[in-house]
């Protein structure tokens, strides 16, 4: 049995705790938040504890609990690093909500804390996307030859934003989020790129704009970006990212990929394959096989995370990977700010 506790439980905590609560191998030991945290954070965390019938604890109690194996850091992004370091120092395994942190300096602090801890750290990600795994398999089997260009479209639908349980300010208030949608979302397509190619980004250019969401306009953060990347070996990539009014997909988020290789070409879409339903009222619906990607992918990742913990294996997605992705995200944000391409210099791979 793996015991899991939540250190702050805002934003996506509801969906994560739901997955754990329904996994017979997992026991949720409690939800905690600091007494001096903002009232809404305490209220959200208490509400989630109440809904799942688990104790609401102080962070000190939770971190000192010898029965708690895993701490889920599910606070606002600007507190991820601080809480993750505390949990690692307490010797716990740490599962951090995305984004890992809001700066690479914070990410480095987590990496250092993990090095000194007997616990491991990982970050919520979408590499369990069946569409991405299929493309990766085809890359590994050689069907593409050498990948040359990858195009990724990543959208969230604004229609879901206002009605979502998620508090919009967790994305738009820089004090909580660290930035706009570049920091919030760009990590997903960047993760996809490195997962599919095994290459590092060497130059990033991005244009950002606020085109769709009044919440973002009021807060002064971008809701849209177009990105041009150069990877090692002359491989190029484009990313079109946005919280648009209504995304061309079936759920709250949608993403599609086009991969051109020297020997082959393929597309992938997190909403596909799907079945179509045609109602007598003329309405058409599409239902993704395997369930909505936004839920199915996270469920698959969390299930595999528990699998590996039970085996005593290290997490498959490392904080170091997440840090490399964050570095590219930072480069894109810098390019969008300065209007100049940002160069990423890579040192020789470190040991370990």
């Amino acid at each position: 049995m793996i015991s899991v506790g939540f250190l702050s439980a805002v934003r996506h905590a509801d969906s994560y705790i739901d997955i754990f609560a329904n996994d017979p191998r997992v026991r949720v030991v409690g939800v905690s938040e600091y007494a001096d945290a903002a009232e809404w954070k305490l209220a959200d965390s208490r509400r989630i504890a109440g809904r799942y019938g688990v104790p609401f604890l102080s962070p000190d109690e939770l971190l000192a609990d010898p029965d708690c194996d895993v701490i889920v850091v599910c606070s606002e992004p600007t507190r991820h690093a601080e809480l993750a370091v505390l949990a690692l120092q307490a010797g716990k395994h740490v599962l951090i909500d995305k984004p890992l942190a809001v700066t690479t300096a914070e990410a480095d602090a987590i990496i250092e804390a993990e090095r000194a801890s007997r616990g491991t750290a990982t970050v919520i990600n979408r590499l369990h996307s069946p569409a991405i795994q299929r493309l990766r398999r085809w890359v590994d089997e050689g069907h593409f030859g050498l990948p040359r260009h990858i195009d990724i479209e990543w959208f969230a639908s604004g229609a879901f934003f206002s009605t979502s349980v998620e508090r919009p300010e967790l994305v738009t208030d820089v004090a909580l989020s660290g930035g706009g949608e570049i920091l919030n979302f760009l990590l997903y397509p960047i993760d996809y790129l490195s997962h599919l190619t095994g290459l590092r980004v060497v130059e990033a250019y991005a244009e950002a704009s606020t085109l769709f969401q009044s919440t973002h306009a009021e807060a002064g953060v971008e809701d849209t970006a177009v990105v041009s990347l150069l990877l090692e070996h002359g491989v190029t990539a484009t990313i079109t990212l946005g919280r648009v009014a209504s995304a061309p997909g079936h759920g709250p988020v949608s993403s599609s990929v086009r991969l051109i290789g020297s020997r082959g070409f393929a597309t992938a879409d997190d909403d596909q394959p799907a079945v179509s339903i045609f109602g007598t009222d003329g309405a058409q619906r599409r239902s993704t096989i395997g369930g909505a990607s936004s839920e199915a992918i996270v469920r698959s990742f969390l299930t595999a995370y528990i699998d590996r913990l039970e085996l005593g294996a290290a997490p498959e997605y490392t904080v170091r990977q997440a840090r490399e992705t964050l570095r590219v995200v930072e480069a894109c944000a810098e390019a969008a700010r300065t209007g100049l391409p940002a160069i990423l210099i890579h040192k020789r791979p470190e040991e370990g």
Partner: protein
Amino acid sequence: MSAPIRVAVVGTGSIAREHVAALASIPGVEVAYVCGSDLARAAAVASLAPGAEATTDLARVLADPSVLGVDVCNATPQHADSTISAGRAGKHVHVEKPAALTIADFDAMVAATEGSGTSLMVGQTVRFQPAVAALAERVHAGDIGTPRLAHVSWYTGYVWPGGWRGWQLDREKSGGHPVHNGTHSLDVAVWLMGRRPVRVFTRSFPSFAADMPVDDSFHMTVRFEDGSLATLEISYALAEPGDMFRRIMVAGTAGSIEHSTDSEPRLRAPGVRTAPASVEGAMRVQLAHWIELISGRAEPIVTTDQVRAALRTALAAQESLDTGRPVDIVWEDDK
């Protein structure tokens, strides 16, 4: 029955052949002349249209008062001279894309035609493809609110013919790939978004051989004057010769619209490859529109202002490739 509309085609290359065949298939149209520098080639192209006369004498063609319009399909560097001569002779002009290799040339072409009482239509064939025309109709009707973000992925499996002699590999002749074919996707973007680009960044790669003098695959990020954005990709790198994939997505303030060639009827037969239904018959529709236009029966679908905006952006895109930097397009500098 009204008298036929008589037109002349200037140029004898592969595009000229397609134009002559398309014009000859439009009822009420007569291709009067095919004019080129080589009489034998002109004769071969003229043979595609009954009654067409092959000639190397452009002045004679332009002096024929029965010719209403001239369709300029020669090499891109010759577009300006031919168009200006035809316009000065009082002819309506259709010119193959890219219209010109410089803005100064394009402005002179417009002045010699629109500026002296005739007309200039640039052959932005893509606008006449059924899928693109339908997307534009829905966007312009307001179905997605105000368009704010466009994403065009346009891939083919194609190598410019002629090996290393291919004129497309010579920047002096083609203008480079952002000008040669980037004008297609930029024109679509300008048309769908309905505003002008103010900054472009371009990145490229050679699809099939290192050290191509002109990279055949490239992409652009485009910022428009109101902050709207676009990602435009063109690649020749599909492994399967003749393969084509194109997806166009536009997100607006009240919805999104999308078309992909992946989701349309397709023939699967050994050794046979047909064009996607969504691009069928565009050139004939385009030239039929030109005939309507010069007959005074239609309003222009392709305006020279839009073509100029796309061409300026394409030239800036090439500059971006050369410098590795984004390039600003300052419209206030214009006349």
